[in-house]
């Protein structure tokens, strides 16, 4: 019942798959999706969105959770190729290391859609399109908000994500590039909190305790979870989060919105995990032979306390 692999047809060129889809519309679309793992609530929401959307559209979704291991993702993609799925989507754990397996998918004529972050490959034709946000841009927006809120004067502590991970690297890069424009802003403390709430708290405690601690006026966290941990640390150190120390973070999960409502978090740059609808729209367009842009930006906003109300919090799905 599954459509046969179009191995005889020439491989699609990127952006404009020449592959005609004569398959009857009755045939169910088979999509393989390889998720990195479940390392945060954000990720869970991302997974849920994709699964729900697949169920809603009646797509046969092959879902594989790599449990945080890039090698498992490679294996999953190879197994999708073996199963001759109609399209492969995945959220790459790192930028590098996909050349070989994407070549295999390319050879098998299966379109590949990246979500969440980009990959580095020799030949951009190896993937069809990329849906997701730009981590550098997120970092930049966070810095932009902070610059505006402090009129370009801030002594900042930074809570980084997991060492070596793409969001940690890019969010740092974007943030630093932006504050470089403001001579009054400087990062004086920076340490990894591993994207964890508990580590965020522990590291922030150490920041506050250090000789420079009293000088801090702002905190930038690479994700909301670490910011939420840091808020507790700031409170127990006897300072007021959100007032004495401005806090800006990235992701926009519900707990962060709640914290903004409570006045303890100042700003969260949204990184939308609800990619499901966009992803399957794109896949269907690709399958119909339409041309899709090489980068599909997700719709994301920058939320600060002024934009958050109880209704907004309630409406948050993740």
């Amino acid at each position: 019942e599954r459509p046969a692999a179009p191995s005889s047809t020439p491989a699609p060129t990127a952006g404009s798959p020449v592959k005609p889809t004569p398959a009857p519309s009755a045939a169910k679309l088979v999509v393989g999706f390889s998720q990195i793992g479940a390392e945060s609530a954000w990720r869970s929401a991302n997974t849920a969105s994709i699964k729900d959307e697949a169920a809603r559209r009646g797509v046969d979704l092959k879902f594989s959770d790599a449990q945080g291991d890039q090698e498992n993702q490679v294996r999953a993609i190879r197994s999708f190729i073996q199963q001759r799925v109609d399209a492969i989507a995945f959220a790459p754990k790192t930028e590098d290391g996909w050349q070989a397996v994407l070549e295999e998918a390319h050879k098998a004529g299966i379109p590949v859609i990246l979500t969440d972050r980009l990959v580095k490959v020799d030949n951009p034709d190896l993937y069809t399109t990329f849906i997701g946000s730009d981590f550098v841009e997120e970092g930049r927006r966070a810095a932009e908000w902070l610059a505006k809120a402090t009129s370009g004067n801030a002594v900042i502590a930074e809570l980084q994500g997991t060492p070596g991970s793409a969001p940690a690297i890019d969010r740092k890069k974007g943030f630093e590039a932006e504050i470089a424009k403001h001579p009054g802003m400087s990062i004086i403390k920076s340490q990894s909190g591993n994207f964890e709430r508990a580590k965020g708290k522990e590291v922030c405690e150490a920041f506050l305790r250090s000789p420079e601690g009293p000088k801090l006026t702002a905190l930038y966290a690479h994700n909301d979870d670490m910011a939420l941990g840091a808020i507790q640390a700031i409170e127990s150190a006897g300072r007021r989060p959100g007032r004495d120390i401005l806090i800006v973070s990235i992701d926009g999960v519900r707990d962060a919105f709640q914290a903004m409502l409570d006045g303890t978090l100042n700003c969260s740059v949204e990184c939308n995990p609800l990619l499901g609808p966009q992803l399957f729209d794109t896949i269907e367009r690709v399958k119909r032979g339409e041309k899709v842009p090489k980068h599909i930006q997700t719709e994301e906003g920058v939320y600060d306390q002024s934009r958050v109300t109880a209704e907004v919090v309630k409406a948050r799905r993740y």
Partner: protein
Amino acid sequence: MNVLSSQHRLPPLAAGVILLLLLAIGALRFDHFLTPANLSNLPADYAFVTIAAVGATFVILSGGIDLSVGSLVAFTAVLAAHLIAAGWHPLAAAGVCLLIGTTLGAAMGGLIVAFDLPPFMVTLAGMFGLRAAAFLVRDQSVGVSHPFLAALARDGVLRLPGGFEAPPRSTLMLAVLLAGWALAARTRFGRGVYALGGHERSARMMGVPIGFTKVRVYALAGACSTLAGIVLMFDTRSGNPAAGAGLELAVIASVVVGGTLLSGGVGSVLGTLIGVLILGAIRMLIDFEGTLSAAWTSIATGVLLLTFVALQRALIVWAGWRAQAAAASGTWTRRVEV
């Protein structure tokens, strides 16, 4: 045949049965499971794990443990990538890394011997230190492209009859396995490793050069981990300092599932291969199933693992009974005259 020495052969044998069972389940459930291409993927995808596990087998057979596998893999992968990015030929980079990795392994063995330290501690320090070293080489992943790598991936594939394919890493894995097996079973060094793990004090009293053997075991493990790192690097054409996190546990688990006793002295390299493939086949089944959420993936992996090790256990007990029953049907005899 006698009971005990076959008892030592039983766990890998039972593991083999389990592996076939897993493949049979996959074949029955999924359309494209039992295809030559898919079956070729299994060893290829786990080539680097297997290579690292061969080294770990020696360490565990000798009664030790090596926690530095994952970090050493990452370190050498990054170093090799870094060197290639700096213009080295991949083979030269691989050679240098192999030398460095072997030396690092030998150094850990040397510390274990010289100060009589617990291997857990020394290799844990190795795990910490080498991970940091990997980040010092490059703090994020490096991609490389080199004509040699592309050519290797394109032309190095062995096409076997029946549609099976062996990419270079599978071939290398096979070579390492063969060498490991021969080393364990057919050299004095290998017998010494078994003796060491079986009873270190006795082994000393029987003239096994304990210190030298241990150093060589850890050097070998270092070499295998390095080779695994290079294979990983060649395959993904990138080196990532964060790669291989938790690999050491996966490797130890494969070795143990393959019938090697963590206490040392009993086990085989072949069992290790089967152990890796069992864990790989479980993963592959879960991928083909394609409906499991993250939580269920963890649970299913755990439950399948348990099911199959319990089954392995049952097979061993059953075979033991059979052997006893067969023996008991004989007569009451005094075994041997002195």
